């Protein structure tokens, strides 16, 4: 834990906050892209430490939150198939589909299992050749290497009873979409450190240049976040718009090339719908032609999916940063983590859940 506690030092945090306060002269809106960062900001109360000029906008980087309803409904239908063992990361189980969630399918007798790695699902498929094992492969670039390896391994071993329901999403096209969206207020980005540990930083300079927006690759611990914010504010005040790497202990310019190689072999870019936001061109990955046999969408034909979103849910605006979670009329009333209307209220990384769990019911109040 030493390597973590040193990034939670209270004195150093105070010094970073003081420097941000000295540098800032006018209001700036900074979007942290990743849900893990949102979670850490709220959990550590970092936004409360910042000067009033610095506003943090919570981005769409929670993979659970942006997985489209149509995909969730498809997952629910596949999971209910008696031949299937449906494997998923834990926080997908509570995400509401049009009518129910994976917990409800499990309760009715569906074989739904929480796994910690897609390789566990492959192992299960190897040990149970009589069962159809489906892995729900969601996530940003961070989870893609392990998911890609799982399919590659299944193909190498000739496992015919393993498939993946893929809904991968990518950060750079999302940044592009946010900057192009009408009403955008974002002045700078804290890019997602873990995503960049896989993909490197090379994808970001064209975005920074095109939109004249500073992008600082940032980690997840309190000092990482404060340093990322400090560097962002410095750039904004000085009128610069560079890509800076504030997470160099993990992220290199080229990223993890071995991981990128396997990703490029297994996945191919794809237009992807984001829940609450809409379709963003080239913003996702699906299985490449060589791995199409492992696509659960093709193996299990699900017809008649008609999605219905709650009309009260404003998660799209929350994900785009135009609405704070507690500004949503349904927040904490019709919509709670117990009865979530949208996915942003479900995952620990979802902005609405992060606000709810931290008791942020009243706008601008620290502890209600």
């Amino acid at each position: 834990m030493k390597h973590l506690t040193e990034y939670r030092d209270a004195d150093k945090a105070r010094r970073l906050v003081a420097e941000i306060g000295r540098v800032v002269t006018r209001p700036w809106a900074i979007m942290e892209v990743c849900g893990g960062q949102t979670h850490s900001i709220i959990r550590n109360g970092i936004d409360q430490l910042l000067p009033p000029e610095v506003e943090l906008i919570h981005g769409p980087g929670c993979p659970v939150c942006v997985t489209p309803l149509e995909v969730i409904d498809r997952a629910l239908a596949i999971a209910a198939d008696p031949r299937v063992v449906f494997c998923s990361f834990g926080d997908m189980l509570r995400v509401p589909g049009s009518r129910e969630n994976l917990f409800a399918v499990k309760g009715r007798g569906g074989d739904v299992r929480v796994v910690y790695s897609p390789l566990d699902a492959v192992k299960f498929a190897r040990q149970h050749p009589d069962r159809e094992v489906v892995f729900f492969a969601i996530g940003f670039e961070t989870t893609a290497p392990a998911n890609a390896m799982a399919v590659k391994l299944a193909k190498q071993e000739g496992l015919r009873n393993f498939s993946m329901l893929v809904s991968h999403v990518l950060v750079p096209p999302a940044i592009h979409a946010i900057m192009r969206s009408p009403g955008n207020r974002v002045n700078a980005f804290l890019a997602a450190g873990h995503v960049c540990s896989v993909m490197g930083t090379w994808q970001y300079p064209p975005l920074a240049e095109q939109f004249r927006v500073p992008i600082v690759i940032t980690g997840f611990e309190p000092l990482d976040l404060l340093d990322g914010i400090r560097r962002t504010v410095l750039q904004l005040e000085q009128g610069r718009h560079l890509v800076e790497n504030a997470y160099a202990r993990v992220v290199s310019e080229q990223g993890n090339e071995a991981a990128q190689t396997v990703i490029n072999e297994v996945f191919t870019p794809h237009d992807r719908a984001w829940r609450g936001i809409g379709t963003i061109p080239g913003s996702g990955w699906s299985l490449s032609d060589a791995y199409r046999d492992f696509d659960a969408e093709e193996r299990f034909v699900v017809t008649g999916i008609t999605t219905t979103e709650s009309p009260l849910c404003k998660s799209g605006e929350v994900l785009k940063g135009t609405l704070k979670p507690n500004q949503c009329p349904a927040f904490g009333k019709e919509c709670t983590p117990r009865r979530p209307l949208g996915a942003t209220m479900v995952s620990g990384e979802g902005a609405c859940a992060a606000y709810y769990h931290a008791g942020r019911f009243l706008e601008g109040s620290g502890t209600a």
Partner: protein
Amino acid sequence: MTNRRFIPDLSNFACPAPLRDYPHVILGHGGGGALTHELIEGVFLPAFSNPLLDRLGDSTVLDLAGELAGGGRLAISTDSYVVRPLFFPGGSIGDLAVNGTVNDLAMGGAMPLCLTAGFIIEEGFPIAELAAVVDAMAMAAGAAGVRIVTGDTKVVERGHGDGVYINTAGIGVVPPGVAIGAAPIRAGDVVLVSGMIGDHGMAIMSVREGLAFESQIESDTAPLHGLVAAMLETCPEIRMLRDPTRGGVATSLNEIAGVAACGIEVDEAAVPVHAHVASACEILGLDPLLVANEGKLLAIVPAEAAGRVLAAMKAHEHGRQSVVLGRVVAEHPRMVVMRTAVGGTRVVPMPIGEQLPRIC
């Protein structure tokens, strides 16, 4: 890491009664006839034997005149135990079934006297494993100084249970003069915790999910009535005791804040967590405050008594790592607020259901 590793060595198990005919529990063992008697005489009685149980009456009559003399009051509690795997690092379902009910009694200030034990066994469950569970229970009962005085056995069809479920009910006596909760919790009171949190839940999770960490995490299952007695001796006016089992410390603190209609403030830097438990939680995206404990207690004590209660806790074997966790405050009633290490604040909510490991 496999579950088998925690099952005691049963290779030399020799059954004193002619149970060898059936190495596994069959439906007939729950039928009340000769097979049931074989099970009782071969497995339960040798482990639990005491004069009250050995009579094998439909009920056991207790004479508590001595214990209740001078104004002692009876306390009663019941709990059911369902855990997978049955044996885990640091304990077993048998330990939980004794210590859990003992601790429920202890949180009311009672000295536990005796337990009942009901077993719901799944057809096909190995008798050797049942005997190992029963032995663990007998050892835990011996260590806690309680007797198992009556019991029941049922067998359910294969697939209708998870090996074995155990229910225990317990009776204890609250000694005269002990009145936990007589005076209400008020702002200024101090919150104490009796040691490192999150051990039990993470021990179970690491085995259940086959997660191998560098050092093994062990359950903290332990009987706490001795610790409670030592605390009450130094401070009979303890405001409240809770054992933070399911739902962890966060749930118990929220319950206390709700009952007291006060706020509770916790200092993040003061939360005691073993480094390897903290690391495991970090990897899985879990909060140690929400993880179950089976041998810890939270105490709300008047500020002026906090020092001496803490000293008494630290002097007891089950409270050596006790610390001040936080304070009761007048602000934010019914809410638990944490001062984070970097100087922010956040509300510690009541968890909704099980914690779900995060995706990345």
